[in-house]
């Protein structure tokens, strides 16, 4: 797993506590019942702070899974690929 994925996993773990690493990597708004709009805002804030970037609010609704966040970060921060 890449360094980016490690850090992203930690971000998810801080918001959705109690999930295993495997559950986090497969996490989506559908698989995690408590993932609501508030969780999205919190998760986005944690990720912005962790990766020192700003996530455009327009794109937030599309970031609905671990994979979507990972892909977004890969494109926003190619150096961390």
């Amino acid at each position, binding site marked *: 797993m890449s360094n980016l994925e490690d850090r992203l996993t*930690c*971000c998810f*773990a*801080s*918001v959705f*506590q109690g999930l295993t690493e495997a559950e986090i990597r497969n996490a989506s708004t559908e698989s995690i019942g408590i993932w609501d709009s*508030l969780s999205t*805002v*919190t998760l986005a*804030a*944690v990720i912005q*702070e*962790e990766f020192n970037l700003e996530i455009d*609010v327009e794109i937030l609704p599309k970031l609905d899974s671990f994979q979507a966040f990972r892909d977004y970060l890969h494109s926003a921060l190619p150096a961390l690929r």
Partner: protein
Amino acid sequence: MKLIEALKIAQHPVDDATMCLRVFLACGFTPLHLQSFLTAHLRVRRRDIRPDIQTGLFGDLVGNIERLDSSRIDVLAVTLEWPDLDPRLGVRSLGGWRPTDLVDIMESVEVAATRLQHALEVTCREVPVVACMPTLPLPPAFITRPLQMGSQEAQLRRVVASLVESLSHLPLIRIVNEQELALASAPVDRYNVKADLQTGFPYSLAHASKLGEILAGLIEDRPPMKGLITDLDDTLWSGIVGDDGVDRISWNLDGHSQMHGIYQQFLSSLAAAGVLIGIASKNDEETVAHAFQRSDLLLSQDDIFPLEVHWSRKSESVRRILTTWNIGADAVVFVDDNPAEIAEVQAAFPELLCRQFPKDDPRGIWMLLKELRDLFGKSTVSKEDILRTRSIRNAGVWRNQDSARETSSDDFLQLVDASLVFDYGRATEDTRALELVNKTNQFNLNGKRYTESQWRQFLADPTAFVLTAGYEDKFGALGKIAVLLGTAHSNGIHLYTWVMSCRAFSRRIEHQCLRYFFEERGADQITFEFMATPRNGPIREFLTGLVDSPLPSPLSLTKESFSAKVPPLFHRVEVSSHV
């Protein structure tokens, strides 16, 4: 603290048995990350509590406070921002900033501030309140350039200043000091206008963390330290009095030693607020006595007790001072300019807080004074605080009596012309009673501490009472020195808490307290919720003397048993009852 850390700390599992601290966070914006930071900082400060942060409706700060059921919370934390006084002072409202609008804004701000003041005055009768005034910048709504303070902006700031001034007089309200907040969180970095628009949460994460930390610090309301032991040479004054002479030591601008004068002035202020100030100095006693006769000294000799001035080890001086004060080393700060002396004292008293006096560093001294103010700061100065040093000085008479005859003799007790004032009731405004309960260790029935709301909840029970005892004798007044909290029933008294200041030992006040229940309240029996603690030996010894057996819990004492054991009591007793 980063948000990811705050979330981890806030959500870390805790034992269900951990005491829950119910905090209502009242704000007009989405509490979001402030809630996480506040929870995390509370858990960092108080490992023994489980914070439960409740929040209210968006955009209705005052309404949230007015609707509060104070029996369901332990603390109210209020974070006011300008839009709470008028939404047009925020970016989420488009109500207009024309001059006519501004006039209307001013009027509505006055009304909202008055309503908030009333809501907080009502709430703080029931629960402690921690409040923060607006931390974010005003919008560019005024006709003046941002560089220039206009009359309308000044008017807004006057309204808030007036609100703070009114609230800061109330005993259960603690208001965040804007000066300290500005040092921790630079005003320019506080506002996140984008987040305000998108999520309704206006703070940068860094500001939310610092504000959460400061609110948690005020919610914690830790008891202040009790005593400070200071060195003299190159600390209380500049110079070595034994070498330089009494006339050459200094603490003024001319002597380039002004910060020593500031330190003296600071200690004098602490002494006036009831902090015990002692001296530990390796010096010639006569020379020091001569130095203390200088009229320009800013710290009166009456403010200091005792002075340990000799050539023995500093740790020995500290030991003697702590014995005289009869308080634990963990409530005392030791200040000395010499690192070697600090190391020697620290090794002997690991729990003592030792600080080096940075004699040639004005900024270092300034920071030291700030730290000391944080350690010794209190909201109010009580009558007992003012009496403390004098009563400890007078206690020497009692100690001499004790050491001469082991226990205070009847003759001596008769001579001191002692009087006791008992006050029995359910009043919760007496902050001294709760303060005494929460800081007394030695004569303490079981070590139980109370939050302000627990104290009020206990006394809301119709059978509950609090009995306080004030003491005075010919050597001076001790003020309120004993507190007993319990419930009264047809068959007797049940005591849940009993504390007595160590300054009041050897006067048979404890016997008089029990006699009050048997004689004045008509009790046939008193039940004590006694529990041994590492430090409550004095009360254990007293109770053992009454029952002549190992102490069960709860422990019961009948009127007959007490009458058989009670020694002669000579106090004049005054009683006032409010139930």
